[in-house]
């Protein structure tokens, strides 16, 4: 049994797969449908242990893929997309290598390889290099590599891509035969193939599971019950007048006229879910119109798939709220981060400025000190030269005070002279 529980795979901010849940029971053949880039291969890669999920867990026959990868991988046979093969090996060498990689005991290996070569119809080409094989054979070799050792679960990623119709049928038959005793999980673009092989269909879109059902139910769900396809022999063109006779008929659409027998095909749409087939039958009989074919218009799986995927609202209300909430949270986080960064930047800038100012101050002080030292030295030198015995002021301040006193004295002298003159 394969269980995928709340699995999410994120690459940066991009969700390749978002919170997916599904189960594949023992013996089931399950189809995995989705457009390109829907998340099919990512899901398969996570199930096979090629990549780890960001969140959630995958349980294969009771073992968690992340914690018991070896045991899980022993249970799984995987055929990756694009049939990767070792082109330098022959078919038999490739299958032998796969058997060795899968830890098949040596005593059982030869028989297992022979069995797989037989069952996949590769006996004729077993000694050919894989590079020289046709695409159909390459697919077979890849499938053989996946099923060698009889794994309980087979995972096939688009096994019939690029094959011609005959090859598609051959590969499909192979998968069908294998699916009789095993669990098969298969992704494909060819829906008719899924319709024919699978018991259950899982539809994935934009990384989310949007539908899990049987192919029949999917078709029924999307089939319009009030639409009929009718083929009539109507030489007098009276069929369209049925609209006036049966009020439940909403519209009669002419589809085509068969040139050989001149029969006409119509699509009749009723306004309600009332079965109008009896009314049409009796009205046609009255108007001499012969009904050759009348059946409910059934949607194919292709139509069902397109309808489900295209009709799907981008996101449900809850999802939108969740996304918005996550967005807001992200924005808040980013804002906080930005604020923090800004704070740190400011702090650092302040620190740097302080350090710069301090350095400048220190440099200035140093310069000043140097200048003063130089001045003092030069003064001392000149004083020593002129007056070997110091008789001048000891400091600058004393010198200034002396200067001031001299100036005062001179002023007083001038004033007294002026006063004398006036007198």
């Amino acid at each position: 049994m394969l269980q995928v529980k709340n699995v999410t795979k994120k690459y940066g901010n991009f969700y390749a797969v978002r919170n997916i849940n599904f189960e594949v029971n023992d013996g089931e053949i399950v189809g995995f449908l989705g457009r390109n880039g829907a998340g099919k291969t990512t899901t398969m890669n996570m199930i096979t242990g090629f990549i780890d999920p960001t969140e959630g867990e995958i349980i294969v026959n009771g073992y968690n893929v992340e914690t018991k990868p070896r045991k899980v991988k022993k249970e799984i046979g995987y055929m990756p997309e694009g049939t990767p093969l070792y082109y330098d090996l022959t078919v038999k060498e490739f299958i032998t290598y796969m058997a060795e990689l899968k830890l098949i005991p040596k005593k059982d290996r030869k028989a297992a390889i022979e069995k797989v070569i037989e069952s996949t119809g590769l006996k004729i080409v077993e000694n050919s290099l894989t590079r020289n094989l046709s695409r159909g054979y390459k697919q077979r070799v890849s499938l053989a590599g996946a099923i060698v050792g009889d794994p309980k679960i087979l995972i096939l990623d688009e096994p019939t891509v690029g094959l011609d119709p005959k090859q598609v049928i051959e590969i499909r038959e192979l998968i069908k035969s294998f699916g009789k005793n095993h669990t098969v999980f298969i992704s494909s673009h060819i829906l008719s193939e899924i319709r024919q092989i699978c018991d259950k269909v899982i539809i994935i879109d934009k990384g989310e599971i949007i539908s899990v059902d049987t192919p029949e139910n999917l078709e029924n769900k999307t089939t319009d019950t009030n639409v009929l396809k009718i083929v009539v022999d109507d030489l007098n063109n009276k069929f369209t007048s049925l609209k006036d006779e049966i009020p439940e008929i909403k519209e009669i659409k002419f589809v085509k006229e068969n040139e050989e027998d001149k029969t006409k095909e119509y699509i009749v749409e009723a306004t309600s879910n009332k079965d109008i087939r009896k009314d049409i039958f009796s009205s046609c009989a009255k108007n001499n119109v012969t009904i050759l074919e009348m059946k409910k218009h059934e949607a194919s799986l292709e139509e069902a798939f397109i309808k489900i995927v295209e009709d799907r609202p981008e996101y449900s209300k809850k999802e939108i709220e969740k996304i918005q909430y996550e967005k807001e949270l992200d924005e808040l986080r980013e804002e906080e981060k930005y604020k923090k960064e800004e704070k740190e930047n400011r702090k650092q800038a302040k620190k740097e400025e302080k350090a710069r100012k301090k350095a400048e101050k220190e440099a200035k002080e140093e310069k000043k000190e140097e200048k003063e030292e130089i001045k003092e030295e030069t003064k001392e030198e000149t004083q020593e030269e002129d007056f070997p015995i110091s008789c001048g002021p000891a400091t600058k301040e004393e010198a200034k005070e002396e200067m001031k006193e001299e100036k005062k004295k001179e002023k007083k002298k001038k004033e007294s002279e002026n006063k004398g003159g006036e007198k």
Partner: protein
Amino acid sequence: MLAVLKKELKTYLVTPIGYIFIGVFLLIFSLFFYITIIMPRAVNFEYLFLNGATILTFVVPVITMKMFSEERKSGTEQLLLTSPRSIVSIVLGKFFAGAIIIAITEVFTLMYFFILKYFGHPSLQVAISTLAGFFLLSLAYLSLGMFVSSITENQIVAFVVTVGAFLAMWFLPDALPIFEVFSLIYKFQNFSIGIVSLSEIITFVSFILLFVLLTIIVLQRRKSGK
């Protein structure tokens, strides 16, 4: 590990890569044998390998370039990593397959020793230590080449980057003595004069282990999608 090793060896011997490696190696070795030994009439086996060490720079990337890059490009990496084999065993399998190809090549080089022995008396001790050093040097290059191959899916890129790394390790110490630690060729020179010191063996072994470990980490991180 054995399954991967066997398959890798088979691939080397089925495709031209293994033969190109052995052939080019021995061709250039023969030229060096003529230039460094026959022309000056010397009997020093180690001279051959001192010059021969430079060949590794261009020949080892031939076998390492496709180790992981090709698997990644062709998608066969999925087959390997979804098998029950551990990443460690896959990496070691590939590494030892490359090591065996190198060992086979070295066995061929013994013929030069026997030629010298026929004409003179080369030192057996020096020859053994030279071969051991040369093998360690080759394995160190092999591990670095394997690591480069694991980080790209383009074989040409893997080849060019590996050659570039080897050249940097060779010439950088001449320009900047700080990088002398990375110069494995200089460390090999001691082996070629018959001196086998523990520190040099440890340097080679730790270099090999480092890049084998880095390769494992690269594959592990790719799996977890980081």
